[in-house]
């Protein structure tokens, strides 16, 4: 478990484990870490701990919060960070047991054997399975949506020929299909590294800047010209 060590002018006052999700720091007694000094605001800062990560946040204090000498509003704490609040120093020490899990152990699926469901007569040498289950796997973050490609600019398609000429389409979704089902369809996929066009169906393949594509995905660049099912269109960012 991560902890903070409070000290004043080199002498340690107290050590505190970051057990709670929120640990508040301030002058008033309701704070988890109370520092009775006028340079400290009544509610000065807080540390939010989620699993193995701790975040320090200044709560709009009068004299500010420094980490390693720099004023911060929000900061992800790293091992041995030095937090300064007035003349007081809080040293952040991360959990030494965390972060040592190898990639191989990361999030392995494990069986949790339920006492009622499990076969009670299982051979005793198999209890090693049970003890392994107790070990808590490291957290996995929720699958984050892929970051918008190309520096936050929105990709668009504009129709240049045919009945829909002039129409514009923002490529917001991860996948956008273009063309005529049953005749020719291509898909534009939005990926972290950019936008790609891939043939989906039809005898004819899409034409990119005058050249017919193969079955592979092709990266799209700003102002590329695409032709699908006889309709010309331009790919661009804006």
């Amino acid at each position, binding site marked *: 478990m991560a902890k903070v060590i409070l000290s004043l002018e080199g002498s340690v006052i107290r050590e505190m484990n970051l057990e709670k999700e929120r640990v508040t720091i301030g002058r008033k007694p309701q704070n988890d870490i109370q520092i009775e000094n006028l340079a400290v605001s009544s509610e000065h800062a807080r540390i939010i701990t989620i699993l193995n990560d701790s975040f320090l946040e200044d709560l709009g204090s009068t004299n500010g919060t420094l980490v390693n000498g720099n004023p911060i509003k929000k900061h992800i704490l790293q091992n041995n960070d030095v937090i300064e609040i007035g003349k007081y120093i809080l040293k952040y020490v991360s959990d030494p047991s965390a972060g040592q899990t190898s990639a191989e152990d990361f999030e392995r699926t494990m*069986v949790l*054997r339920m006492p009622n469901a499990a076969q009670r007569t299982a051979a005793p040498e198999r209890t090693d*399975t049970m003890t392994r289950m107790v070990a808590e796997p490291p957290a996995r973050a929720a699958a984050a949506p892929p970051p918008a490609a190309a520096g936050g600019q929105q990709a668009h398609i504009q129709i240049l020929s045919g009945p829909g000429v002039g129409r514009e389409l923002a490529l917001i979704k991860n996948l956008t299909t273009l063309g005529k089902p049953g005749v020719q369809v291509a898909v534009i996929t939005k990926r*972290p590294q950019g936008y790609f066009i891939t043939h989906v169906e039809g005898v004819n393949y899409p034409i990119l800047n005058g050249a017919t594509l193969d079955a592979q995905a092709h990266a799209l660049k700003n102002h590329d010209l695409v032709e699908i099912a006889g309709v010309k269109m331009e790919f661009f960012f804006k």
Partner: protein
Amino acid sequence: MNRVIHQFDMASATDVGRVRAHNEDSIAVDPELGLATLADGMGGYNAGEVASGIAVAMVPAEIRKFHDSLGVRDLAEPEVREMVAAQANKVNAAIYAAAQNQANYSGMGTTLVIAYWHGDRVTIGHLGDSRCYRMRGEKIKALTRDHSWIQEQIDAGLMTYEQARTSKKKNLVTRACGIDLNVAPEVHTHDVQAGDIYVLCSDGLYDMVSDDNIHLTVSSLKSNLPLAAQQLVQQANDNGGRDNISVILVHVLKSGRTSAGLLARVKNWFK
């Protein structure tokens, strides 16, 4: 060129992901039989691959044997469910025995999803946290309920779906094949409509790609199912690829009691 009419369009993909050293998932599809099997193995060294490999080798072989012995007779639904449960139990016994006999394989196990289409029905048997979704119209629905600690918390009202998504105990399964001498597979039969698309997948897909994006991808690319499967794997990898990723897509083009007749025709053709 004449268009060959199949009852099913099936495609699959499996990938090691971006973190793991081995792919412990195994998959098998049999469009003629109307059978899809997916297993996500667990255990040290290569034991996970062995366990999931046993599962996907045994299930199709056993179901085919069963199928052939029956001829073209239509089966009663409870019989099919019994048969699917029996396959899961056989696989369980085989993996359990292999784990007992070889020290390297001790503690190995696997999740299992079996989807077997018969007439205008599909019977799905599962163990663990691999899933089978059904896409029908604009909706995607999980037909399997995970056998996992987290699902039990949700069922008990102790946790919301959102809390579950970020929980650190996501990977604890409460039932699996090969861990214990006996196992209780969950087996259900559902109606099938032409146009349904079934998505069998391991947690490496649904943990990395939301249900909505699975639906968007498959519905957009259903005319090219292999591309849809490949795109799903790619999205899971783009989002981190923390686990092995496996997916089987089954598009039901035609449904109904004619399946037996079609099968008989196919069989005659091979004679």
